[in-house]
């Protein structure tokens, strides 16, 4: 106690009298009155005020978005209204053609197929991942011998570079390869499916790659979700005479809703971008059977040099995706709000 413990700033040094509400620390003045503090402390003290401090991380982040993503978005929109190919001079000289690129894109069967195909992949892969992940998580729910080993192994695929997965599977899936060998043993007759060059099988291979790798993630999410289930409602239901199935259906599943929401949003968000597996496994072939949006746009932009068309398609895609984004975000918001309400007594 005593003088040494007193606030280091004499009253008035930080704020001019009669100047309510606004800060006006003068770093120089601070220096003079407090020789113990360097100018760095002065700056830090200034940054520390809540109205400054809380914006500190926003400056670089928003700056990054504003400088990196915004100009690109604007450029994308601008390009889509032109008729520019890389083979037609500089983009700023390209003729303005209004909605032509958009109309062209909507009339491009291949594009529409690619969109449909990509959503189709997601529609098959994501539910599969959810079901598998959920099933495995349920099996690993209570403690038993070997549980740690299982969970450890199940998380492995997530940690592997998708390009490596694509490469690895391309080795396993050749027609005289290990995968067909295993199938043959199981089936008791020779199986020679051309996983990489058959029209339908190649689609399955791409979906399979996604499922193999990302079931790990849904498994992880569900394991944590199940571990976090509150015990009392379940106990209450048991006391009330509910059987295992009823508890699962009426108590646990509703409580797991937010977790399911995360898994769905996380996975479908990434599944719509699918690029690596078709690129590495099949190059979009055979035919165009595994050509996803990303692969087609890659070709459109970089091989066919049709940048304006690619830009228009990108924007159409964005509109489609934003419907999904809108729904996903509403779900997330609702679940978070609900949880906050439940948490408050």
């Amino acid at each position, binding site marked *: 106690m005593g003088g040494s413990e007193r606030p280091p700033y004499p009253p008035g040094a930080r704020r001019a009298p009669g100047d309510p509400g606004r800060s006006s620390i003068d770093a120089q003045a601070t220096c003079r009155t407090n020789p113990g503090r360097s100018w760095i402390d002065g700056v830090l003290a200034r940054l520390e005020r809540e109205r400054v401090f809380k914006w500190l991380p926003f400056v670089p982040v928003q700056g990054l978005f504003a400088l990196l993503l915004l100009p690109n978005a604007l450029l994308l929109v601008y390009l889509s209204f032109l008729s520019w190919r*890389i*083979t*037609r*001079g500089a983009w700023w000289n390209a003729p303005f053609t209004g909605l032509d690129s958009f109309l062209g894109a909507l009339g491009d069967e291949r594009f529409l197929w690619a969109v449909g195909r990509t959503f189709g992949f997601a529609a098959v892969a994501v539910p599969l991942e959810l079901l598998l992940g959920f099933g495995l998580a349920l099996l690993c729910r209570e403690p038993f011998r070997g549980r740690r080993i299982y969970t450890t192994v199940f998380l492995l695929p997530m940690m592997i570079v998708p390009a490596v997965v694509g490469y690895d599977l391309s080795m396993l899936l*050749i*027609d*005289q390869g290990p995968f067909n060998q295993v199938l043959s043993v199981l089936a008791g007759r*020779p199986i*020679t499916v*051309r996983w*990489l*060059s*058959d*029209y339908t099988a190649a689609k399955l291979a791409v979906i399979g790659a996604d499922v193999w790798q990302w079931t790990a993630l849904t498994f992880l999410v569900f394991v944590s979700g199940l571990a976090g289930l509150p015990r009392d409602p379940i106990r209450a239901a048991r006391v009330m005479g509910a059987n295992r199935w009823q508890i699962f259906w009426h108590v646990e599943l509703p409580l797991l809703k937010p977790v399911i929401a995360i898994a769905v949003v996380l996975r479908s968000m990434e599944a719509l971008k699918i690029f690596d597996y078709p690129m590495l496994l*099949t*190059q*979009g*072939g*055979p*035919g*165009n059977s595994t050509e996803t949006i990303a692969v087609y746009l*890659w*070709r459109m*932009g*970089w*091989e*066919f*040099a*049709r*940048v304006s068309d690619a830009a228009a398609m990108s924007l159409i895609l964005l509109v489609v995706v934003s419907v999904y984004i809108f729904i996903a975000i509403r779900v997330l918001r609702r679940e978070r709000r609900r949880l906050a309400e439940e948490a408050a007594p």
Partner: protein
Amino acid sequence: MRSASRTVVTVLLSILVLGPVVAAAQAVSGTTADERAINGAKAYLKSKGLTSLKLNMMMPSIFTAGSTGEMANFEKETGIGVNYFEVGILQIQAKAMSEAVAKSGSFDFWIGDPISLPDLVEAGLVRPIDDLVARGKPDLDDVVAGFVEQGRYKGKTYGMFGDGDNWIMVIRKDLINAPGEKQKFKAKYGWEPGCPDTYEQWYQLAEFFTRDPKGTGVPELYGAMGYRARGWGWRWWLQQFYAKGGMPFDDNMKPLIAGKEGVEALKDYIALTKFMPKDILGWATPQAYPFYAGGNAFSIMTYPSIAIAAEHPEKSKIAGKNRYCVVPGYMVNGKLVRRSLQGFGNLLYVSNYSKHPEAAYWLSQYLTSKEVSARLVSGPNSVWDPYMKSHLTDPRVIKARTKEMLEIHLKNAQVTAPMILIQGAVEYNDVLDQHVQEALLGKLTPEDALNRTAAAWEKITNQLGRKAQIDGWKALKPAFPTKNVPD
């Protein structure tokens, strides 16, 4: 504008008219093209006040091993070395396009196929090299007729041709000569087995030599091999289509592929596939060569570099057992028409955005000189295929490829047709590729596939501007061979 004679005339004219003034002052000394390249490079370095220089080169990753030695030699001689930037062979186009946008100069020159030339020239990426050709006098006159045209577009030279990728047919003479086989074959098909003259004959050979004694559906020996994978398969169809006498477009750029020739060629193309390994739909050179060299197939239609794999003393199980054939054809109006395709063919392009385009050019000239190209072509790991007349007589090349193969190869060159080298080629080809594969997979009927391709081609042509495309197509037409069969 694309015939060899026209080129020679153009070059001669430019030398005659402008030459005495410009070239005399700048011509590079040296008796051979590689010497001139070295001298030119040295002079260039000197003029820039440099003692050494590293050029960035983009190349398909498959190409480095065969070429690095010669680049090291060039660096030893001149001080100009190369950093390689390897890209998947099918992504070269994308990377080049991206550089056309970027204009970054991040690579000085690159190896690419002729298909992308028109687009890349239009995109402003490729530097015309006529001025440097005039000064360096590369061995263009030794390049097989027609090939040199592949590096030219709208009257200017853009790339040094370096890889004679017209196809060759290889069959297994040991299997034909096996006891009893000839007789059995003749009894069945009525002709002495050997190099097929027509695709029908190839089909018969393939059928006969496909050996599946246990009936497992996985033969011990496959009758035929070609390429059927996405990105490649269309080229093999195109060759068959040309042999049918087909042309992709008429003079107004109306697609002609969906006609009788196209459909028949496609049916034959599909029929032949059943004698090929099942996974052929995903294979390219790195899969096909070892498979063939492993003695697993009777015949293959592919790049001439197959000889290196097939005759490799250690890695090949069938060295010395191969017979090289002039490509088969079709009977058109009672006459046999054979067509080989310049199915890839690499060019050395110099970038417009290079800081040292001249240095890059000198290295290109060095690599495509008679002497150095012979070394490249005969190298143990080479994927460069013979493309100069002098290769035929070079003992090193003969040793690596066999005399028989070289003679056949240059015969094939006489009936070699170009791919569709006009603006938008990549897109035309991709659409064709897609539909050919869908027909192959039974997703579309051959007629349907080709009709759809034709419709898509019309769309592309309209987008690019019909007039410009007609001009491009007309300029390409002279590059098609006039002979039906080689001499």
